[in-house]
């Protein structure tokens, strides 16, 4: 060995831990494992239950294949689909129109504090609930049908769109805005000339992305009575017409994939 014979006090190095020290680290890991074990215990899915589930699944499969695309079914699917697509389009347009001012007022760099807080609040509120929760409430409030669905999707759009637009505005180049302000432009003009051009491509891209999301959501809110193909789907379950259910699911799948493809193509063109 070529190493020196004198023992030097070698410095050691350990990778710093995000926890305070390694005891805390192992304690946290232990807690996580314990939590997982408790969850499994709480559910207590027995092998018997798994078997029963399996047979129910195979039962559903045999009954649903082949999908039922009969004349009457086709008509129901068609009308449900048209309603869903219409709901998605109307909700996207309405939602975007409402979101733009909300998004501007929720941008910390251009909005006065009280307006900022208020609009951030609106956005957080809209984001807090799942669309099905909002749909349930609205079905009770305005009755069964697509109106409840449109309001639900518009509301969710405001949460999504408003948040992303306000974040985009918070990252604009403020030099451009400042130059417009220096010409003596008023606040609205500064927004139109200094801020809006910087976020327009994002607004267009996000609108199309949101339309795609709304299309997907519009197929599900019907489950709680808010119109669209979801309602047709629900009825097929209730009547145990699993072959019809499969037909609907296949059409929804096709529609969602198509919407996603269209949205992707358009967004790529814009960038």
């Amino acid at each position, binding site marked *: 060995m070529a190493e020196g014979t004198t023992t030097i006090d070698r410095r050691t190095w350990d990778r710093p831990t995000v926890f305070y020290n390694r005891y805390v680290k192992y304690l946290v890991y232990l807690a996580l494992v314990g939590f997982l074990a408790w969850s499994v215990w709480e559910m207590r899915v027995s092998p018997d239950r798994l078997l029963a589930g399996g047979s129910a699944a195979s039962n559903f499969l045999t009954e649903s294949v082949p999908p039922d695309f009969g004349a009457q079914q086709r008509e129901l699917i068609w009308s449900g689909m048209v309603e869903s697509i219409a709901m998605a389009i109307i909700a996207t347009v309405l939602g975007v129109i409402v979101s733009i001012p909300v998004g501007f007022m929720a941008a910390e*760099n*251009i*909005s*006065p*504090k009280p307006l900022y807080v208020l609009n951030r609040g609106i956005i957080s509120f809209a984001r807090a609930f799942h669309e099905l929760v909002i749909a349930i409430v609205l079905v009770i409030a305005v009755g069964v049908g697509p109106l409840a669905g449109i309001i639900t999707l518009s509301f969710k759009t405001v949460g999504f769109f408003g948040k992303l637009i306000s974040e985009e505005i918070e990252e604009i*180049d*403020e*030099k*451009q*805005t*400042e*130059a*417009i*302000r*220096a*010409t*003596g*432009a*008023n*606040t*609205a*003009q*500064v927004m*139109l*000339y*200094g801020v809006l*051009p*910087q976020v*327009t*491509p994002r607004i267009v891209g996000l609108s199309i992305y949101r339309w795609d999301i709304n299309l997907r959501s519009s197929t599900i809110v019907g489950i709680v009575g808010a119109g669209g193909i979801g309602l047709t789907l629900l009825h097929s379950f209730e009547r145990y017409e699993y072959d019809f259910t499969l037909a609907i699911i296949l059409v929804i799948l096709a529609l969602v994939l198509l919407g996603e493809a269209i949205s992707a193509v358009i967004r790529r063109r814009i960038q």
Partner: protein
Amino acid sequence: MLSIENLTKVYPTGDRALENVSLEIGGRETTAIIGPSGAGKSTLIRCINRLTEPTSGRIVLDGTDVTSLNKKELRKARLDMGMVFQEYNLVERLTVMENVLSGRLGEVNTWQAFRRQFPPDAVEHAYDTLETVGLAGFEDKRADELSGGQRQRVGIARAVVQEPKILLADEPTSSLDPETSRAVMELLTDIAEAENIPVLINIHEVDLAVEYADRIVGITDGEVSFEGEPDELVEEAEDRIYRSDSVSKTGRKGNDDEALDNLGTELREI
């Protein structure tokens, strides 16, 4: 005629950027403000149109005390002051014409601005000015398609279209190569003469200042340290402006930092 009286600016951080600065700028002369980085040159220019709010003192433009104006009156006063920026500050996604016409926003209402409906004489003036700055035919190009020199020309055109009573230029050549810098300086001084307005240029290239300005003002540590004609700027005077102790005082923030500090608060006010 612009007169600056006892202008003082203290930033919230406690930095005293300007200390009792008094200046008079009139006629059609080009005044160059020189001085080390962080001396307060930028703050001085920005205080004139209140992009930076002065702490005390007065700015009087043709009898109007700019410092006492409310927001609406200030917007009107800003229309009378064209500003050219170091980094051009064009709206990148708008066309050259929209950028130039934005100089007249103070004259149209919001709806007209949205529809791009500017008075016919403004459009005519915009075409003429684009020709003057050598960008005829560039109307429909987007600002982000232009080179640095071209962008600064658009920036100048935007300021000229305002038909201002004074032109303020904050380091207009700092982002440009030497040759383009000269062209821009020439353009600014030509405009001052043609439009019969004074030009106040903030510049750190002393040779450009000496070559193009009619008058030179030196700012050191927030105070006027020199005032005179270019040929009076002898070595001794230059040493006084750029005196070494100001370099050791770089605890003071640079111009850009000051400007950025302000942007946030200012934008919230619009």
